[in-house]
């Protein structure tokens, strides 16, 4: 009985405390702070999610610190921990600025975790027109800018020239401009040894590159306003069937994945150097990996191309965003502006070029997300003429001019999970492509509807 007597008031106290725990978060801090270009900035600036791991980061960070001598910049390094970030915002003690993937910005904005930056752009004269359209689109939510974009990841076609020659093929057969040719090249290039895939003819890089294959076929996975999933579009289905068939003609995805998993992707014995991969679309940073670790690999490069022969790349990258409740938003705005300024990019690219020269390596350029900086870096610092790397750099810059992105939306994680899970179910032999995409469409639309309803209903207000 004594236990019961204690349990009742104890539970009541805990329930009261539980009720009191509500209200720690909220969207009350989502209003944009004012930014004054003439204000003095000082104090501490906490940066979450950014690590100045190389000369590109170090140089720009040093310049940003120099531009604000009275500001003490403190880095919380490592990839942005979303849970830690949002908890800090909810607790009213957020970092002053965060460095996130661009595709996270829509979700953060929809939840009121980051503030609009239109006024920041204006106060610091950040040139919107200088940014790549695809990059800017990813940080624009509800007609407002919520991030300052930087970097651009693009895909290009990489191939093993020796294997192509041996099969009587050229890079045009595997650059995506003719899907039948890609399938035929896959069959010609792939080899198996006792039932095991010894040479992957062509890796369509599923599931991650479905948006690229779908766009090449004329379809977007998501409507321009970010509200409607289009995963059951017949052109998406056609793209998925093609990309999966590329694995099927080599004996199935399981064999290709096993060979892929066993490969030394970052080392001197990578798949191209060891002639165990014919071709694949891949992000541009892999040029540097290949150049550093296997400079003699028999490479061939071209842009990834649509069936019409046009270059195409699915752009991703990073962005700076200022959390709701940032204690030093003024300094955060100036910090972001400095990090993406033309001069900072040029100084950083020069530092990278110098470092590469010292190491006896070629400088293959930097895709900054800033059109002017990209052009200037390429024209003044990128001097590589040796093949195949010159072709790689040309393909990279060509791809950079032909990018698209998925629009910012409030349910990006769920949307991605829906289509990636669908592709995986097909790859694992659990569903047919049409059935998988139909299920994904339903899941994605449900998540989008719920997230947009919350935003439209103003629950973050």
């Amino acid at each position, binding site marked *: 009985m004594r236990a019961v007597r204690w349990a009742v008031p104890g539970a009541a106290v805990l329930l009261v405390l539980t009720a009191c725990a509500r209200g720690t978060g909220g969207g009350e801090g989502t209003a944009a702070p004012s930014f004054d270009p003439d204000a003095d900035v000082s104090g501490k600036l906490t940066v979450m999610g950014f690590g100045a791991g190389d000369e590109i980061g170090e140089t720009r960070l040093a310049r940003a610190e120099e531009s604000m001598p009275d500001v003490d910049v403190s880095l919380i390094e490592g990839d942005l921990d*979303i849970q830690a970030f949002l908890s800090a915002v*909810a607790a009213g003690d957020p970092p002053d600025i965060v460095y996130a993937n661009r595709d996270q910005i829509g979700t953060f904005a929809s939840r009121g975790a980051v503030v609009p930056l239109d006024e920041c752009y204006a106060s610091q004269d950040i040139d919107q027109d200088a940014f790549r359209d695809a990059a800017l689109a990813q940080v624009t939510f509800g007609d407002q800018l919520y991030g300052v974009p930087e970097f651009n990841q693009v895909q290009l076609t990489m191939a093993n020239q020796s294997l192509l020659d041996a099969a009587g093929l050229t890079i045009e057969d595997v650059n995506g401009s003719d899907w039948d040719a890609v399938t035929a090249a896959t069959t010609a290039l792939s080899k198996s040894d006792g039932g095991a895939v010894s040479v992957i003819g062509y890796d369509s890089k599923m599931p*991650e590159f479905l948006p690229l294959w779908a766009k090449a076929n004329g379809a977007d996975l998501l409507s321009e306003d970010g509200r409607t999933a289009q995963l059951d579009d017949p052109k998406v289905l056609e793209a998925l069937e093609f990309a999966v068939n590329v694995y099927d003609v080599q004996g199935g995805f*399981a064999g290709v994945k096993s060979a892929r998993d*066993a490969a030394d992707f970052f080392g001197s014995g990578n798949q191209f150097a060891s002639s165990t991969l014919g071709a694949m679309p891949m992000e541009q940073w892999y040029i540097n990996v290949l150049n550093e670790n296997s400079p003699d690999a028999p490479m061939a490069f071209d842009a990834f191309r649509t069936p019409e022969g046009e270059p195409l790349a699915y752009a991703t990258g990073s962005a700076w965003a200022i959390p709701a409740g940032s204690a030093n938003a003024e300094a955060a705005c100036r910090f972001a502006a400095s990090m993406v300024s033309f001069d900072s990019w040029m100084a950083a690219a020069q530092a990278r070029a110098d470092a590469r020269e010292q190491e006896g390596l070629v400088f293959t350029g930097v895709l900054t997300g800033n059109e002017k900086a990209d052009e200037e870096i390429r024209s003044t610092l990128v001097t590589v003429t040796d093949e195949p790397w010159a072709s790689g750099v040309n393909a990279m810059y060509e791809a950079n001019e032909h990018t698209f992105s998925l629009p910012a939306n409030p349910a990006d994680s769920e949307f991605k*999970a829906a289509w990636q899970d669908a592709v995986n179910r097909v790859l694992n032999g*659990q569903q047919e492509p049409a059935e998988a995409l139909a299920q994904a469409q339903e899941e994605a639309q449900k998540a989008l509807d719920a997230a947009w309803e919350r935003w439209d209903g103003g629950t973050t207000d």
Partner: protein
Amino acid sequence: MAATTTTAPAGVEAPRRRRSSVSSRDARHAWWFIAPWIVGFLVFTAWPMIYSAYLSLTDYDVISDPRFVGFDNYRELFADPKVALALRNTLIYTVMAVPAHILLALGLALLLDRAARSAGFFRTAFFLPKMTPPVAIGVLLLLLFNGQRGAINTMLGWFGIDGPAWTTDPDWVKPGLVMIGLWTVGSTVIILLAALRNVPTDLYDAARVDGAGFWHRTRAVTLPMISGPLFFVVVVNTIAALQLFTEAYTAFFGSGNTTYSNDAALFYAIYLFQQAFEYLHMGYASALAWLLFLVIMAITAVQMLVSRRVVYYEGDAR
């Protein structure tokens, strides 16, 4: 006379009061000693549990205030096909993993119990893998169980067996995880070995006199005598299997594995994690957590009921 009848003899009453006083002091000391645990339990276990029960009745995304939605999250649980899938995967894994784990551990413990000189070495050797971080085990799975170049299929190939695609074929994903889970069988081996060492040798002697062989002695003496610890490891391993996360997440959902995943490895704790920390559906994830809690409670209760019939505790009147 009256005084002698109403007052107990001093020699009897005084020690009782002393005992009472000592007992009360001991109790106070005991409370002081366990107070840190009680505080820790209230703050780090009871409070989060109660708060999660409250959150399970809300729509909560960490940033905004929790919005009370009644039992909507629980209703959604039963309509969500992925909950059913994750539960099915988890239960199938548990049914496969727990017996395999216990049988292997028991077999190794029986062998170690017979090994006199080298027992210490093997005890350490079996326990060492337990020190391996679960993330490393997840990565190890991808290497060892690679369908074409992994060590497992290479060894199967020596016997003319064409090994399956452990990491991509939905039918073989769970068996692969069960097998890699056996890597950490060491702690169960140690517990069972300790139990085996406690079995009175005279029972074996008596069995031998009666002509019982090794298997008969194991069935009639060893297993009944270690049924208590055996039941303990069954319960603990069942709970661990129902909460499987790290190894499967690293191998099939982690960032190092790009965007590849496999529905056959979508275990309940992974789905809960995705809802909470990837999609920020904290209310729904809390409801998921409570459902798992109830499932584990129910399974453990059934195990407890069954144990009354099959578990023998020394000194137990039953």
